[in-house]
């Protein structure tokens, strides 16, 4: 649902993104760790990797992109090539940064 002001500009947008979902279920919620240790990679890296998976239209069809309910999450399929390239570059930087941290540690 979009509200526009007198000049017709979009002011209120009700939408949910993959980022909204991931920042919640990967990074929030109750943390009482089980006795089984689990390792999750950097959340920003994972978010971008998942976005790339979904960006690829063929992949999206394969995994059934419409699993988010329509009133909750907007689809991100069909992003253009430039956006995908930007995401790949960002992943590369994050992975290099993670590698550097491992070497130093």
């Amino acid at each position, binding site marked *: 649902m979009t*509200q526009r*002001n007198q000049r017709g500009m*979009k*002011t*209120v*947008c*009700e*939408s*949910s*993104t993959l980022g*909204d*979902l*991931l*920042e*919640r*279920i*990967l*990074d*929030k*919620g*109750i*943390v*009482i*760790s*089980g*006795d*089984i*240790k*689990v*390792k*999750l*990679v950097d959340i920003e890296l*994972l978010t971008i*990797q*998942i976005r*790339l*998976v*979904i960006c690829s239209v063929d*992949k999206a069809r394969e*995994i059934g992109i419409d*699993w988010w*309910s329509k009133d909750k999450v907007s689809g991100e399929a069909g992003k253009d090539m430039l956006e995908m390239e930007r995401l790949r570059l960002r992943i590369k930087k994050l992975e290099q940064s993670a590698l550097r941290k491992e070497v130093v540690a």
Partner: protein
Amino acid sequence: MTPASTESGAGPLCIYLYCLYRGEVAWSTTGARLGGGLIVVQEGEVTAAVEPVMRAEFSDEKLADPKGILDKLKVHEEVIEEAMGADSVLPFRFATLFSSVSVLKSRLAEHRAQLEKTLDHLGHREEWGVELTVKPSAPANPSGGPAGASGPSASPGASFLRAKSAAWERRQDRREEAAALTDRVFRALAQESADSRTVSGGGNKAVFLVPRDRRQAFRSAVHRLADSGTFDGVQFRVTGPWPAYHFCEQFPMEVGRG
């Protein structure tokens, strides 16, 4: 058969904990979600929604695979969403695993008082997120610089530096104005909710714990603020309703997640 691991309760299976809840949930199916099928474990008036899963499905490699993890995240979220029909729901973080139901029960017993307090706080409430984008207003003096900076006596270098400094100051002013605007919006919306907090990363995002029967009032408040004329140039993005993930944070962080 996989060799015995050094962790407690060695074996290929473990227990995945989705959430705790009070009240009733009409589960769409008790069939397989992430593993062998949903099981509810009762502890007094608190119910745990759990599932036996293959431990190997949550190895480091599996959790680093974006396609694989996406499938699991989907299931986790669907289960929590189904549980939202209950009186109060405590979502657990993705991939909370126990070697057995008895270990799970004893962990929950350790934290019982705090879990019940949180269940009380979240009862009949849901989370809404609001993200604000303040559009930069056009600078009053685009050429920048104090009077005389571009006079014949000013060197090009000095003029350049003065212009840069003036531009920086204008950006600072705009940042402060934006922060003041977002602060006003969030304070107003906090009045419409039982609890609220800003989310890290820039100060333009906040989450609100809203009683379910006040959902429409909250959404109307957002639209009213946007319409008021006071916040022209501010874009509002509203997301929700969510299980109250951000309001579980009063729990002490535990060691155990890499």
